[in-house]
């Protein structure tokens, strides 16, 4: 972990400190050190959770959801593509166990399949040029906090020509009192020029 610190911004360092605190908590089953915490997308606790103990339920306005979504999306995208490019084997840590990926029309379902898939994919160099996100309406998620993240850019897979790509993610929040861990529930990836790929 130390060797990567130079790549981290101040924000990353702060979050890392919070992370360490999280992992030292009683509900963790493993130690805090090692590469694991790098592959977690973590943001401050969700508003509802902060208010959970209060006598009055706090209504969370839309703007808060939007801000939270943006934070999650930005953090996520940084970690995801760096992990994809540089630490491919750790990539599936960002996925839920039952996550699904549709990669240029190929369906990959579940962690085992995902592990296999990313293992067989050539090494990559991603360049993300566009990022947008939206909080997903709770009616669609039955109050499981979810963010739609959309990215676009270029990717060069080893041995192949460069492609423009679009990618969509649904990130779901797993909340703790201290922070929120985001994982990919669903992932959709396409080359923009898929039929010549």
């Amino acid at each position, binding site marked *: 972990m130390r060797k990567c610190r130079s790549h981290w911004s101040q924000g990353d360092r702060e979050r890392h400190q919070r992370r360490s605190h999280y992992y030292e908590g009683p509900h963790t089953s493993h130690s805090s050190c090692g590469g694991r915490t790098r592959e977690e997308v973590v943001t401050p606790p969700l508003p509802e959770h902060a208010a959970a103990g209060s006598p009055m339920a706090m209504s969370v306005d*839309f*703007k808060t959801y*939007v*801000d939270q979504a943006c934070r999650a999306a*930005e953090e996520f995208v940084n970690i995801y593509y760096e992990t994809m490019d540089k630490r491919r084997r750790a990539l599936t840590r960002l996925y*839920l166990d*039952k996550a*699904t990926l*549709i*990669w*240029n*029309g*190929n*369906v*990959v*379902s*579940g962690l*085992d*399949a995902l592990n*296999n*898939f990313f293992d*067989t*994919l*050539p090494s990559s160099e991603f360049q*993300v*040029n*566009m*990022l*947008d*996100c*939206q909080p*997903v*309406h709770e*009616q*669609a*998620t*039955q109050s*499981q906090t979810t963010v*739609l993240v959309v990215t*676009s850019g270029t990717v060069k*897979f*080893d*041995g192949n020509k460069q492609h*423009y790509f*679009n990618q*969509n993610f*649904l990130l*779901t929040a797993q909340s703790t009192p201290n922070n929120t861990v985001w994982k990919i*529930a*669903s*992932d*959709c990836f*396409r*080359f*923009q*020029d*898929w*039929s*010549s*790929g």
Partner: protein
Amino acid sequence: MSLPSGHTMGHTDQVAQRRARCSDIYQRRLSSRSEKVNPGIHSSSHQQQDGEAAMHGAHMDSSVRYTPYAISPYNRKGSFRKQDQTHVNMEREQKPPERRMEGNMPDGTLGSWFKITVPFGIKYNEKWLLNLIRNECSVPFIPVEFHYENMHASFFVENASIAYALKNVSGKIWDEDNEKISIFVNPAGIPHFAQKELKSEKVEKIKLAMNQQCDVSQEALDIQRLPFYPDMMTRDTKMASNPGKCMAASLHVHEENIPMVMSAVGMDKWKGTEPGGKCADRSPVCTTFSDNSSNINSILELFPKLLCLDGQQSPRPTLCGTEAHKTLPTCKGSFFGSEMLKNLVLQFLQQYYLIYDSGDRQGLLSAYHDEACFSLSIPFNPEDSAPSSLCKYFKDSRNIKILKDPYLKGELLRHTKRDIVDSLSALPKTQHDLSSFLVDMWCQTEWMLCFSVNGVFKEVEGQSQGSVLAFTRTFIATPGSSSSLCIVNDKLFVWDTSHQGTQSALFTLVPTAFSSVPAFSQEQQKMLPS
């Protein structure tokens, strides 16, 4: 396990039996489709098959129509038969003990894999066919991953001399109709199953149960990437007694088994039984199409690309070499998960874009949830100095990678259906090309559908009139009334392919059976401003 010879039964009995099985398989394929198919589409694919038949000299039953798009990508053909199980056991027994399933020769080098294909082999029972070949083949061989692919039967062998011997069998064997059987041999890349040691027996079973789309000449395509449903094999054994039924049953099985992310509960809500939450009255959208079955024809006519579920031409066989070169999986066409969802989504898209392109987008109010979200983006291209047809989208573009102003971040995410429709109404007038649409249904639960549409559209007015832009639009929708969808999230991404320097592949004529379908249907052409 002894292999019965091909001539134990009376000749005519066999012929009758196989004919019955053959047409049974085809009939069940057709009847498994819940909706009618446009006869126009039928004939073109039939013609294609006739052409191929003439080339290969194989016989094609002219009374049967082949409808490739009738079958979901998981079920081109199924071999849920007990014979496959025994096939694997046989294979295992014969394999030298020191050789694991990773393609390593005893001296550690990788073997040479060859793909053996019997054109129109789908007509033949696997055991019968392999026996026939064995009887004629000068060397013994172990067929690996026997499977049916489109109309053909294929398997792999791991030895050049065996492949050569098999090639010599071509034209020297006949089926019961006295038609010559050809055998084609191609070098294959290292098949997926040879790359990694298959540890679990379960995976073995799945491999055989789902030996479709397993074109192992693409190294990276791995059967484990297909959805795995643990109870599949128990279902299969029930089907084993009636192989003719296997095809339809396997189609049925896969229609139910849609990757579920958040819930394993059934999909009743999507059949339009119960309306979702706060969707307001949506009559303009809902009443346009009341009769599902007759409208499917027109919808399918409008979306030819979507019907070609495996839109990619067959991959070039790679010569296996000493370099462990990873290749990318073949890019495929639309993925829907099930026929029902496909129809639902296609219908939705047709209705949506009919209004979107009509010149008045206010009609879309009924398509959105009260508290829906919408945003749009265009690519951020620092090198892009020339004004482009995207400039009209620029002011609405939300790209939080470069946009740091929190006020704008909030503003550019449109919230509430009124805001959304107002903002959509301000965007340039368009004409979408439904025939270019490619859809990925990438998340579905009991409460929502999430799918992305890729396609092209034309600008129909203003300075950029006639210019073609490409888009990807992601919808998250909840079940609405009258089997419609209620949009809760809408994300549009628009780009200009000419600026990328690459030709939009969406414009490229991906080989489909429907190249005669015009880019814009007659209905759409009527909608175009004169």
